[in-house]
C-alpha cells in the first residue's frame, strides 16, 4: 500500500529491473535474486512453501500417528478440517495486517507465531491435542495473502498475475512435496538413530518447523515491503501515510467483486485443499494400491502446481495483453468450469489408470484457475488490496471446509460420489463470475461503461474528498495510470505511459 507525498528532494532511485512510476517492476526474471523485486519473490514463495509443508506434514505420516495417538477416522477427518479452517480468519487478519504494517513484518510475525504449533506436534499425545496443533499450524497458510500482496506491491500490472501465479504455485507445491519429504525424513531418522517409529515421527516434525522458523528470519533480514523501503521507515519519514483500518475495511467489504471472487476461489483453491486431504485415501481404498503408491499419487496432484498455477497467471497476463480485463475474466470462467467438468468425470471413471490420468488433467485446470483468480484480484481495489486478497484467500479455505463437511465426512456419500458432486458444485459456484463488471474495462458480457468512466475514476472513488485534499490518493492515481493496459489492444483515450528505469514519475499528475 503505497501513498507518497511527492517530496521535493526525493532522489531518483535506480533498480536492476525496469520499473513503472510506482517503482514496480515491469519484468519478471524468475532466476534472479536482485533486490528488492526478485528477492521479495524468492523470499515469499520459499516461506509460503515452508508453511504448506508444515500444514500438510501430518497426512503422509498418519498411518503411524493414528496408531500412536489411537485416532479414529472421525478424529482424522476433524483434524483435516481443522487444518484448513484456522486460516479462514487468519487470511482476513493477514490482509488487514499487510495493509497496515506491510507484508514483511506481517508474514514474519505469523510464521514465527505458528512455528510453536509445529514444534508442539512432536509432543501431542491425544486426538484433542492433535486436532489443536493441526488447527494452529493451519493458520500459517495465511502467508498466502502476504505473498500475493507483496507481489502485487512489487510488480506492475503487466506481470502481476505471472508473479502472483508463480509465487502462489510454488508455495502450494509444499502440499505435494511434503507427501514425499516427510516419509523420507521419517525413515532416515528411524534408521539412522534407531528409535522406534512412535518416536521417529515426532522427531521428524522438527524439520519443517525449523525450516519455517528460518524462512521467517530470512524475510525479516533480507526482505523489504515496497520498492522504496519498509513501511515503518516510510511512515516515520512521512513518505507514506498510515491508513485508517475502519475505512480500509469498509472499502473492502462494500466491493461486491471481492465477495464473488471469494466464492469462486473457494471452488478452485478450496477444491485443491480438499483433494490434498482425501485423494490418497481414495486411491488406497477404491483401487487397493498400497499406502506408498497412494501417497505418490497424492503428491503428484500437489506437485502439478509447479507449472499449472503459474501457467494460469501467465495465461491471465497474455489474455490481458490482447483482450484486457475482459480476457482475464473470460479465461477464469472457462478454465474453472472445465475443472468442474473434469471433477465430475474423476468421480465416474472406474479404472486406476484412467483415474490417475483424469486427476492429473483436473489438477492442471483447477490450479490454473487459482492463478487466473489472482490475475483479477490486484485490480479490484487499490486502497484495500490486502483485505480483498485476504477475503479471496479466506474464501478458498471456507470452500475447503464446506466441501469436506458436506461430501467427505461420515459415510453419507461414497468418496467417488462426493467427488462427482463436488464437480457439480464447482460449476454452479463459478457462475457468479458472469456478474463481475469493471465500469472502466467491462465484464464478460458488457463492454466498458458508455459514460466513459476511466481507471482514475474507479480507483479515486475509494477515497473521500477530505482524504483527497490531503493527497492520500496519489498512489491510487499512479496505479490507475499503470493499469491502463487492462483495456487490451483496443485504442484507449490516453496513450500508454512510457516506462522509466528511474523512479521519478514522468508527469506529476495532481
Amino acid at each position, binding site marked *: 500500500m503505497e501513498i507518497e507525498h511527492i517530496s521535493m528532494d526525493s532522489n531518483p532511485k535506480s533498480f536492476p529491473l525496469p520499473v513503472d512510476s510506482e517503482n514496480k517492476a515491469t519484468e519478471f526474471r524468475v532466476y534472479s535474486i536482485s533486490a528488492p523485486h526478485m528477492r521479495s519473490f524468492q523470499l515469499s514463495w520459499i516461506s509460503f512453501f515452508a508453511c504448506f509443508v508444515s500444514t500438510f506434514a501430518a497426512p503422509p505420516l498418519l498411518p503411524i500417528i*493414528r*496408531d500412536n495417538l*489411537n485416532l479414529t477416522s472421525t478424529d482424522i477427518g476433524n483434524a483435516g478440517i481443522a487444518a484448513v479452517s484456522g486460516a479462514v480468519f487468519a487470511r482476513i487478519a493477514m490482509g488487514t495486517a499487510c495493509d497496515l504494517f506491510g507484508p514483511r513484518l506481517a508474514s514474519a*510475525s505469523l510464521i514465527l507465531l505458528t*512455528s510453536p504449533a509445529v514444534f508442539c506436534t512432536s509432543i501431542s499425545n491425544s486426538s484433542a491435542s492433535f486436532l489443536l496443533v493441526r488447527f494452529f499450524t493451519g493458520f500459517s497458510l495465511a502467508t498466502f495473502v502476504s505473498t500475493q500482496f507483496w507481489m502485487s506491491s512489487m510488480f506492475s500490472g503487466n506481470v502481476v498475475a505471472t508473479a502472483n501465479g508463480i509465487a502462489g504455485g510454488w508455495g502450494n507445491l509444499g502440499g505435494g512435496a511434503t507427501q514425499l519429504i516427510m516419509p523420507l525424513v521419517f525413515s532416515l531418522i528411524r534408521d539412522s538413530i534407531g528409535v522406534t*517409529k512412535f518416536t521417529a515421527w515426532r522427531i521428524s516434525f522438527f524439520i519443517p518447523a525449523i525450516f519455517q522458523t528460518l524462512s521467517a528470519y530470512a524475510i525479516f533480514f533480507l526482505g523489504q515491503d515496497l520498492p522504496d523501503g519498509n513501511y515503518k521507515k516510510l511512515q516515520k519519514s512521512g513518505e507514506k501515510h498510515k491508513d485508517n483500518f475502519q475505512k480500509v475495511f469498509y472499502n473492502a467489504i462494500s466491493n461486491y467483486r471481492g465477495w464473488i471472487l471469494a466464492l469462486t476461489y473457494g471452488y478452485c483453491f478450496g477444491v485443491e485443499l480438499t483433494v490434498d486431504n482425501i485423494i490418497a485415501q481414495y486411491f488406497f481404498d477404491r483401487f487397493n494400491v498400497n499406502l506408498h503408491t497412494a501417497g505418490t499419487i497424492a503428491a503428484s496432484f500437489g506437485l502439478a502446481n509447479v507449472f499449472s498455477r503459474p501457467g494460469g497467471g501467465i495465461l491471465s497476463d497474455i489474455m490481458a495483453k490482447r483482450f484486457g480485463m475482459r480476457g482475464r475474466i473470460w479465461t477464469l470462467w472457462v478454465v474453472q468450469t472445465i475443472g468442474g467438468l473434469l471433477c465430475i468425470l474423476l468421480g465416474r471413471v472406474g479404472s486406476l489408470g484412467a483415474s490417475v490420468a483424469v486427476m492429473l488433467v483436473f489438477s492442471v485446470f483447477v490450479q490454473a484457475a487459482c492463478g487466473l483468480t489472482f490475475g483479477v484480484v490486484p485490480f479490484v481495489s487499490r486502497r484495500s488490496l490486502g483485505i480483498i486478497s485476504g477475503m479471496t484467500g479466506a474464501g478458498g479455505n471456507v470452500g475447503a471446509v464446506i466441501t469436506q463437511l458436506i461430501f467427505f465426512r461420515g459415510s453419507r456419500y461414497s468418496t467417488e460420489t462426493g467427488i462427482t458432486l463436488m464437480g457439480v458444485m464447482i460449476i454452479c459456484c463459478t457462475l457468479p463470475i458472469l456478474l463481475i463488471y469493471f465500469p472502466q474495462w467491462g465484464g464478460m458480457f458488457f463492454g466498458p461503461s458508455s459514460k466513459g468512466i476511466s481507471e482514475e475514476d474507479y480507483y479515486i472513488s475509494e477515497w473521500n474528498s477530505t482524504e483527497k485534499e490531503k493527497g492520500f490518493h496519489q498512489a491510487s492515481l499512479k496505479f490507475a495510470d499503470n493499469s491502463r493496459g487492462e483495456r487490451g489492444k483496443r485504442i484507449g483515450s490516453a496513450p500508454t505511459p512510457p516506462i522509466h528505469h528511474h523512479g521519478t514519475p514522468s508527469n506529476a499528475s495532481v
Partner: protein
Amino acid sequence: MAGRAFFVSSLVLAFLVASSYGVNFSSLKRTLLVTTSHASGRVLKAGEDQITVTWAYNTTFSQGTDSNYKTIKVKLCYAPISQVDRAWRKTQDDLQKDKTCQFKIINKAYSPSNNSFSWTIERDIPTATYFVRAYAYNSADEEVAFGQSTDEHKTANLFQIQAISGRHTSLDIAAAAFSAFSVVSLFGFFYLEKRKAKASQQK
C-alpha cells in the same frame, strides 16, 4: 506358434488372477486350539509385558485333515471394539485384503502338539484390544486352517495393550525451547524495526 503364445499368456493371466484373490476366511476350518496366558487383571504394556501362546491340533477332527499343514503363523489381531471407525483395521473375508491381524508373533513349522512361544510385546504395537489367531499354511503358502484364542464373535478372552507414548523428556524440552525461541525472536524483530525506523528518522 500362435497357439503356444496363447497358452502361455493365458497361463500367466490365470496365475495373475489366482494371485489377486486370496483365500476366503469363511472357507477355513477352525482346527487349531490356541490359548494365551499373560498378566491378568490389568492392561499389558508394549515393550515390557509378555504373552505366552500355545497352539495344538484339535484331535477331534478326523485324522489326516492336517496332512497339508506346513507352517503356522501366529498373529496378534484387533478385537472388533478396536476396529470401530478405523477403516484401516477392517475385517474382510478375502484374506489378501483383510486387515484384522497386522502383527506377527511367530512363524513356525507345523507340529500337531507341544507348541508354545513366549512373546515380548513389541514397542510399536498400538493401544487397542486384541486376541491371538494362528493360521496354518500349506506348501503353496496359502491359508488352509486357523485357530484363535477367542470365541466366534471375538468377544471372549480379549486383552488390552497400552502402547508406548514415543515421547521423551529431551523431545519435550526441545519443543518447548524452540517454541519459546521463535516467539522471543519475534519481539526482538519488532524492537529492531523500531530502532531502525528511529535511526533513519534522525538522519
